[in-house]
């Protein structure tokens, strides 16, 4: 899995790509988020538009990242989740707590609501 970081108005945008399932690198997404928290960056948007493979490893990485950010008064918003990922969110009811937006800009704007 690839992680590309950018920042806009104090909110970190992590653009994720590739397989969020098979390798240990998916778990490192949580480590990446924990490093951001250490830097005082607790508002994160994850752009999942280029994720090609999603399973329990990816799900676990998302959940761990979300709880770490929430524990530090931050938040995580998801942008551009693919149809498959949205299905997982729906069937697991994660959609009730983890918001998905159609675009990164919409996810960024949601922090100001």
């Amino acid at each position, binding site marked *: 899995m690839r992680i590309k970081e950018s920042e806009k108005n104090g909110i970190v945008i992590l653009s994720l790509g590739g397989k969020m*399932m*098979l390798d240990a690198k998916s778990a490192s997404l949580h480590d990446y988020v924990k490093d951001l928290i250490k830097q005082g960056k607790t508002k994160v948007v994850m752009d999942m538009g280029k994720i090609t*493979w*999603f*399973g*329990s490893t990816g*799900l*676990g990485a998302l*959940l*761990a990242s*979300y*709880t770490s950010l929430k524990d530090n008064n931050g938040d995580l918003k998801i942008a551009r989740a693919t*149809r*498959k990922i949205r*299905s*997982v969110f729906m*069937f*697991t*009811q*994660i959609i*009730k*707590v983890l918001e998905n937006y159609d675009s990164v800009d919409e996810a960024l704007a949601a922090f100001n609501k």
Partner: protein
Amino acid sequence: MENNNTNLKICINGFAELEQARESILNFCSHYCRSDEVIDILEMAILEACHNAILYSTKRKNKSLCELKLSFDNQSIKAIVINYGKAFKVLEKESFSIEQDFLQYKNGGLGIPLIKSLVDSVEYSRRSDGTNELIILKKINK
């Protein structure tokens, strides 16, 4: 790979072969189901099971790490995932739960809860020869 009208058998010998297996799973499911959402769900559940089967499989001479059998019967697609390795406790795990798995999430162990959330039934049996058999069933509406 063995294939007839309603049955497909795939031997998977590592993570690198999962991509090819995915195509076969998609082709099989698409043949019996027209709902993209159901096909997506089946693909994810079956691949999750195969991924875990490979991850926890013990290598044996002349045997594949994971064997996948797909069949269609009575408006349902059934996937049987077989591996040789340590037994696991499927029945003790519930479907994915916001309270248990999300808000109290620690590390790992989400595979079976995720699969149970996605499909209609999950059964498990341990054979006397040391193989595990996970049976996944999803009803489909053409």
